[in-house]
């Protein structure tokens, strides 16, 4: 199994500022995913981050708002830019499970509150 850590675990930020969330995996993975869970809502995929290429964003999410870095096979960052209260969510990263089990391991999440 993969062990995934995220930093920070939670933060309270002011409107208009930006926050960078880090995701560290204990093994090398090609693909990493970033999700958002707004209060009372389902987990929604923001983007897929492949090492060595630009992230692929889902409908409704843009690079200017959620820039992603993927400098190596064990690490990724997601930045939430120019934050507004609507960005208050739990942000999670995940990686595919190897071996054909067709699911994903999730990090513990970053709980963001924007005032």
């Amino acid at each position, binding site marked *: 199994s993969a062990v*995934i850590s995220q930093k920070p*675990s939670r933060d309270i930020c002011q409107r208009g500022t930006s926050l960078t969330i880090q995701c560290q995996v204990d093994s090398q993975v090609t*693909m990493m*995913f970033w999700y958002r869970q707004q209060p*009372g*809502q*389902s*987990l*929604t*995929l923001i983007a*897929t981050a492949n090492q060595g290429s630009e992230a692929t964003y*889902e409908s409704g999410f843009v690079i200017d708002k959620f820039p992603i870095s993927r400098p190596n096979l064990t690490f990724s960052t997601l930045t939430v830019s120019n934050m507004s209260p609507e960005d208050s969510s739990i942000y*999670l990263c*995940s990686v*595919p*499970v190897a071996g*054909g*089990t*067709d*699911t*994903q*391991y*999730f*990090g*513990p*999440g970053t709980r963001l509150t924007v005032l």
Partner: protein
Amino acid sequence: DQQVKQNSPSLSVQEGRISILNCDYTNSMFDYFLWYKKYPAEGPTFLISISSIKDKNEDGRFTVFLNKSAKHLSLHIVPSQPGDSAVYFCAASARRGDDKIIFGKGTRLHILP
């Protein structure tokens, strides 16, 4: 447009009894279904899955049933234990191995002593 629906935000079940969590979906292209379990301050963890070619998959106390004609699946937990208290997410993908998984909003399960 919600493609995966969990219409019960919460459910309370007596310890030792059966817990039944329900999920409905709208997309006929979904081919693979998963249940995740989430404790507070932790990420979701995979629980059990089922392919559309099956109607039942069992793993210990957990059984998932799929009714394709009704576009409905359910998770049965028997017997329910205190550690089962968590939020359960139903999820689906259009093909096995698809990276894009669509999640429901979750059902919070409370196991009562």
